């Protein structure tokens, strides 16, 4: 019961912080969605990190390490520690500047203006929402499961989901971005400390320390692979370095970049980011591997940390550490809800005339109503749908967002990029998502067991499509590789084949450089792909 009380206290603290933020909130969209672009340096780092860290960083990582071993750290954590800060450094800072100059609050608003085309923004909006919503739903599911597990089943799963959805909704509904980032400070500190404290406490409880257990795992032929990557194909490992490109393309991450007060806030963030990832992932993965000895034979290895804490930590500390896990769930979930609300309000409601008709206060009212509606719907779906469907959708979403990164890079750095190139890339990504979803589905029945080699999906096509235990691969690479490379190639090809954006737009977005766009430069077209309405502020 004590862990439940500790978590309840934590939730009350979150609610209090949110209510204080509410008193500071103004009734305009820039304040509600971006805290008036006033987020300071340290808060920016803590909040951006919370935005990107989900329950997977703690529970999923340890569960995967329990199944696959230490390779998970290099696969997911250290590659993210390089690629994500690089994208924040090169893309996030530019997004911030464009938001500051032209008032963009979403990526879609930027794309529409950059390529003088409403349709391309709408296409990217639809694809982004389709990929983001499952992520939001699975966060609510994860939160419900954690609350249920921590309480030993006293808080039943539907109630756990309801509590998470309610706290997240209240936080975003009342506090907007300000409430969200304030809560993130508390949440991020809590879950950054989680790993080190968990390792220290569990180590203290083990006679002989961790070394004995590692040697025991190494000497057993059935478990030795957990300390190497011998069962992890090198192509698979390399493919995974493409996945973190998705980070900056997730709407909640991009929107967070718009909220910084100064661009210098990014400096601290990019340096601390790899270290923060290490602080969470390294202990969780290590404990996941050690858990194979301390808690053998778990049916659901994602619960390994909760088992270890229950058995090796004082009950009150298990409660605090449980709150750390809940923090990871809620930190990202609040940003996802806020991002979906921001996108619908700015990219649909305001873009199609809602703001002109109902004003700023009306827009904020719409946003709040939308937040309520979307979380209620997400909650109901979470209760009615198997988690496995959304797990798969989220995996696909990471590949999809990663494959959209060439569109962002072209928009920011390549004057000659065009709306046709962007549209072609978007369609390429959408087509691959459908294709890999289909192949994944039809190959479920032939998926090999863990440790067995991949099998051919279509024997006539040779090794083009193979099925491993969990994934479809393309010549042994994850689909994200052809998706990203193809998206970039399509972007370049179609841009070169079609007229460049107008000189006015190029000068707007590349003011200092001499335009290298030739005489092909065209005037903005008219209609849905003429210059879109000015970004709605």
């Amino acid at each position: 019961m004590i862990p439940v009380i500790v978590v309840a206290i934590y939730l009350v603290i979150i609610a209090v912080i949110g209510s204080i933020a509410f008193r500071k909130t103004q009734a305009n969209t820039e304040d509600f969605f971006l805290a008036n672009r006033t987020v300071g340096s340290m808060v920016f780092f803590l909040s951006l990190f919370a935005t990107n860290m989900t329950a997977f960083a703690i529970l999923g990582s340890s569960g995967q390490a329990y199944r696959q071993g230490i390779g998970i750290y290099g696969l997911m954590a250290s590659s993210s520690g390089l690629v994500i800060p690089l994208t924040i450094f090169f893309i996030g800072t530019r997004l911030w500047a464009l938001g500051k100059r032209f008032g963009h609050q979403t990526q879609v608003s930027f794309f529409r203006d950059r390529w003088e085309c409403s349709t391309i923004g709408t296409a990217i909006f639809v694809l982004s929402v389709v990929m983001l919503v499952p992520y939001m739903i699975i966060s609510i599911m994860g939160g419900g499961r954690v609350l249920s597990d921590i309480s030993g089943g006293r808080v039943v799963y539907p109630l756990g989901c309801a509590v998470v959805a309610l706290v997240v909704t209240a936080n975003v509904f009342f506090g907007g971005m300000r409430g969200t980032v304030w809560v993130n400070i508390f949440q991020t500190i809590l879950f950054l400390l989680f790993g080190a404290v968990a390792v220290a406490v569990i180590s203290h409880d083990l006679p002989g320390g961790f070394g004995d257990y590692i040697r025991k795992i190494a000497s057993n032929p059935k478990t030795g692979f957990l300390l190497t990557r011998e069962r992890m194909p090198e192509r698979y490992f390399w493919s995974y370095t493409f996945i973190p490109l998705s980070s900056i393309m997730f709407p909640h991450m991009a929107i967070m970049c718009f909220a910084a007060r100064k661009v210098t806030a990014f400096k601290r963030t990019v340096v601390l980011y790899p270290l923060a990832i290490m602080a969470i992932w390294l202990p969780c993965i290590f404990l996941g591997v050690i858990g194979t000895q301390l808690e053998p034979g778990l049916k659901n290895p994602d619960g390994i940390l909760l088992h270890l804490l229950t058995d090796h930590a004082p009950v009150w500390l298990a409660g605090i550490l449980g709150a750390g896990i809940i923090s990871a769930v809620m930190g990202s979930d609040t940003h996802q809800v806020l991002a979906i609300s921001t996108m619908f309000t700015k990219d649909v409601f305001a873009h199609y005339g809602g703001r002109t008709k109902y004003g700023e206060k009306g827009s904020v009212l719409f946003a709040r109503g939308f937040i309520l509606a979307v979380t209620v719907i997400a909650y109901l779906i979470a209760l009615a749908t198997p988690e496995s469907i959304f797990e798969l959708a989220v995996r696909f979403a990471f590949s999809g967002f990663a494959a959209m990164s060439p569109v962002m890079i072209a928009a920011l750095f390549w004057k000659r990029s065009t709306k046709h190139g962007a549209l072609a890339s978007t369609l390429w990504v959408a087509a691959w998502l459908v294709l890999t979803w289909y192949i994944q589905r039809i190959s479920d029945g032939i998926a090999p067991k863990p440790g067995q080699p991949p099998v051919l999906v279509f024997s006539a096509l040779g090794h083009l499509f193979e099925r491993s235990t969990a994934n479809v691969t393309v010549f042994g690479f994850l689909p994200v590789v052809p998706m990203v490379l193809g998206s970039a190639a399509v972007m370049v090809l179609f841009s070169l084949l079609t007229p460049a954006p107008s000189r006015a737009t190029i000068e707007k977005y590349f003011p200092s450089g001499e335009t290298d766009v030739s005489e092909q430069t065209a005037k903005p077209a008219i209609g849905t792909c003429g210059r879109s309405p000015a970004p709605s502020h």
Partner: protein
Amino acid sequence: MKAAKALLITVLVLLVYLVHQDFWNWKKIDPLVFGFLPVGLAYHAGYSILAAILMAFLVRIAWPKHLEHVQSEQPDRSSDQPERH
């Protein structure tokens, strides 16, 4: 000078990216760093620190300083500024 700097940054980032694929540690457990960390895990922990050092270096030599002076080009919306709750 500018091109040389861009080249240096590109080469540096590519190098750090490439050493992520540490094929030489693929099947190794030993040495156990600090007596309990398998070498493959310790290597990638070190890699995280290397990534932080690289980012600190980029902040120092490739920081987009021109962005620090960006000004808003939006029309004044002071009339739109609303009341507090």
